């Protein structure tokens, strides 16, 4: 299973963290620090896997961002690598040519999408269309609620005038 997912920028800034194993808060920052140093120092021609305390970190760099997932040593590394790519493809379709800024200002969207791709550290859906459909449905639910509340507010505002 995937123990955690980290998105780290070239500068070492964290863009997303998701923990599927119960790491205490202190441990989390330690892990992030270790993984950043480990992954950022690796050259471009190296393989996508690094040993880390008996686990494997599978990572891939997309432009300025490193997507990292930690798995057990016996797990299938390439499968995990393709989960990363699958996630990136969905982000790309959702944002339309995704870039780091998208993920900074819409970090919550990145979380929504991740929750549709992974649960319990396992792949939930490999169909990109289904994931995108679900995420846009969520968006429209939020939009609808917003409109409703703003229209309500205007009604109240008018009534109290």
């Amino acid at each position, binding site marked *: 299973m995937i123990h955690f997912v980290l998105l780290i920028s070239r500068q070492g800034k*964290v*863009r*997303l*963290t*998701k923990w*599927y*194993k*119960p790491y*205490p*808060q202190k441990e989390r920052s330690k892990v*992030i620090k270790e993984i950043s140093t480990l992954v950022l120092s*690796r*050259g471009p*021609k*190296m*393989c*996508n*896997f*690094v040993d880390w305390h*008996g*686990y494997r970190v599978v990572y891939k760099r997309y432009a300025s961002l490193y997507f990292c997932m930690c798995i*057990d*040593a*016996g797990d*299938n*590394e*390439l*499968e995990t*690598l*393709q*989960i990363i*790519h*699958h996630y990136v493809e969905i982000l790309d379709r959702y944002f339309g040519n995704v*870039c780091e*800024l*998208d993920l*900074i*200002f*819409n*970090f*919550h*969207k990145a979380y*929504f999408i991740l*929750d549709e791709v992974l*649960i*319990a550290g*396992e*792949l*939930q*859906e*490999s*169909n990109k*269309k*289904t994931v995108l459909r*679900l995420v846009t*449905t*969520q968006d429209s*639910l*939020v939009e609808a*609620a917003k409109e409703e509340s703003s229209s309500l507010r205007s009604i109240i505002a008018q009534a109290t005038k």
Partner: protein
Amino acid sequence: MALSGMRGLSVFISDIRNCHNKEQERLRVDKELGNIRTRFKNEKGLSPYEKKKYVWKMLYIYMLGYDVDFGHMETISLISAPKYPEKQVGYIVTSCLLNETNDFLRMVINTVRNDIIGRNETFQCLALTMVGNIGGKEFSESLAPDVQKLLISSSCRPVVRKKAALCLLRLYRRNTDVLNIDGWSDRMAQLLDERDLGVLTSVMSLFVSLVSNNAEAYWNCLPKCVRILERMARNQDIPQEYTYYGIPSPWLQVKTMRALQYFPTIEDPSARRALFEVLQRILMGTDVVKNVNKNNASHAVLFEALALVMHLDAEKEMMSQCVALLGKFIAVREPNIRYLGLENMSRMLLVTDVQDIIKRHQAQIIISLKDPDISIRRRALDLLYGMCDVTNAKEIVEELLQYLNTAEFAMREELSLKAAILAEKFAPDLSWYVDVILQLIDKAGDFVSDDIWYRVVQFVTNNEDLQPYAAAKAREYLDKPALHETMVKVSAYLLGEYGHLLSQRPGCSPKELFAIINDKLPTVSTSTVAILLSTYAKILMHTQPPDVGLQKQILTIFKKYESYIDVEIQQRAVEYFELSRKGAALADVLAEMPKFPERESALLKKAEDAEVDTAEQSAIKLRSQQQTSNALVVTDHPPVNGVPASNHLTLVKMPSQNIAEESNVTYEEPPVETPKENGTPVKVESKVDIIPETNIESKVEPPTSQPASQADLLADLLGPLAIEGPPAAVEQNPVQGLEANQSPVGDLALATLEDQSNSVQPIVNVEEKFHILCSKDSGVLYEDPHIQIGLKAEWRAHHGRLVLFLGNKNTSSLVSVRALILPPSHLKMEPSSVPDTIPPRAQVQIPLEVVNLRASRDVAVIDFSYTFGTVLANAKLRLPVVLNKFLQPITLSPEEFFPQWKALNVQPLKVQEVVKGVKPLPLPEIASLFMSLHLAATPGLDNNPNNLVACTTFFSETTRAMLCLVRVETDPQDRTQLRLTVASGDQYLTFELKEFIKEHLIDIPRVQASSPPVPVQPQLPPAAPATYNDPGAMLAGLL
């Protein structure tokens, strides 16, 4: 750029981005946190929108690495919000911020449950996702049934069901009891018929976890998995959206093949055939293509297929295909594929008969050891380590030593440890081993742990032939200008002990040795100074005739350190100074160090410890563990043989005791004066002197007057005893092994032994080996001049798997090999067939499956025989399948322990006995004795410092896992007695466990009244001396 839709949040993020340095960022964050805190305080004025916005900001700040230690309540409370936008934020941020252990989570269990069982599909999804991501034990207790219902409900849409499947997986991982196996295997089979591939993918993840825990229960699902694979491989009926770069869901394929690896075998011929067709298609049909993603996906499937083929141990044809593929992979440029090729080749080492093919790739693997990528180098190192054996050890170890020069720091320690282990395991001769270790210390002293140099000292101490060589080598190194401190330690130690053996060589006179060692003194740390002082004392002692000049020099140094600040050094200096003026007495005190008892290499243990345990057992991991221990046994031999001293040391003792008793020879035992370790040989010799006519020296051919060899006599005696094992008899003579030694064996017993003179004698102490294997899981069971029998065992609950390794040591075959296993009634043993012939220098493996039906102390026996030339050899060996193998230590908290202890307060379930004649041990030693029996002594359960409480779980087919509780109350006045209380849920188990513990606690066999009063016998090393001779016991008596 899409906007977040929350202006305040976007502004805050921009602000942070505009900060020029960390300090500014911190100020901005603090300001925001202060703001949020005040807004949360007067919550009334907060609109849901604002609340949502602040919670997002908190998550963002948290992601930046700041502590967010407030607002958790507000976040969680959003879960209970009626509207979707707030609820969504509540669920998602909660699952990011909090851990499953957070107490706040408990408060929302009800809300979450309502969302799960409610009608709103979007709410269901949110709740399932959060529980799936952070659900803990409490969630699993209260929500599992509802989640199950959703998964199997036909009215739920796939979007809910796939989430339910993974949510259930999470809950199952937290608590495996949430799924009742009986009902679930059928349900699972139905679920695997799922047409929606999204749901099926999630279901398959759940299934992998279920079978990894209990494959037996899910046999009915096996054909379904094969069918799924077939469907994928043929690309039948796979919607376009579920193909990934043209490959039908690689994830589902990988998971399905993973699940299949948890089944021991696939017996159904049609399923097997179908599966192999699929695997063949994957192995043959995977090409390297340009698109990297397609390539990765297809190879993910391919590597999983390789693992499955290895697991199923397929027809040799397919296996050789696999090896060929891996051989190709480890030579490619693409780093991922090379990495995985190396990794899988390591796994491949487990498969029999391919080692030789893998060895052909050695050169290629060594190239990867020099790759710029550390990940690849690590895999290459693992592989080289795994494939090393006697044939290639020299080459590989030398390669590792060379690599040590350039390896980065991160790898040096591992590298030197591995090189040291390989050198020890496979040394063609011991001098080479010494060479390697000294080179290691020389090249990478900082990374050579103390264990490594301790080990080399042990070897040298135990092997007289090696001592001059090692001393000479150490002397050579001392000539080097710059020397690592570890090297100073080891050379000083070796020269102190064995430097005198070199005295004839140039540059090795005591004076010169002292001078060159003393050169290092000013620069070394205190721990080394201590060793140097001992070395000086030893040099002084060995200087015959005494050299006044040298003595003066050394005494000056001792004098100088008499006021040294470090107590250890000060004491040594004072003592050595005084001792060195005692003249001849010095030689006694500073005599050569005694031989070390044979023990498991600390290095191997260290290497095993270094392997981190991962929570979920993967099939591959299990097998790779098997591999390490496998290697251990098969190759344990050279070092063991390399210590001939211990062989003759232990051999003679037991028979000699027998004979001493039989012939009623009484003699005065010389008082114990030598150190424990080498105390025994002295006594043995003394006995040999007393009864010279029986001629029991082991090296001598068996006496013609005695019909059978002593050792065989032993085995024969033990055989029937062990099989029948009547409890009464055992009670009388608590320690079976000792009984055999000490019970007065009449002439009759000797006469009944087979006339056929068995001229083959074991060259190891069979009894001792058996005892060692009772607490260890691998090692040598038996060895004689022609054959060595090694044993490796693995235990899981009430199942065990033994492998006997029969190694022919000769250059001609052993024929008519028979190994008849006589299991006691409580063990089900399924041996595989034994080959009639063992070819020269070959090793055959006999796997043996064991099932423990119930508790018993009876022992299985293997009646083993073979013919070599005209000699028929026969031995009855006890197999170390003893009660403690089915125990798993467990530590209980007082809250868990006391209810159990009280609940078992019924007579046959809990029994108590005052045990007398116990070997007087301090409590910590009883605790460690218990630990070796897999009973976990748990402090804190009994406040009385003289008592000890231990817990364990016993596994058998009838009792399944059963908790056993043990309490020992010792009497500080009289350490030879104690009160033992044993409790478990099964009266039979309680009784057996009590007797079993007693056997280990009691030491002095109660000699029957008829036998003559025998003076205290020197016991085997594991057995402690008798009470009244033991200083500890006498002390206890005095106090």
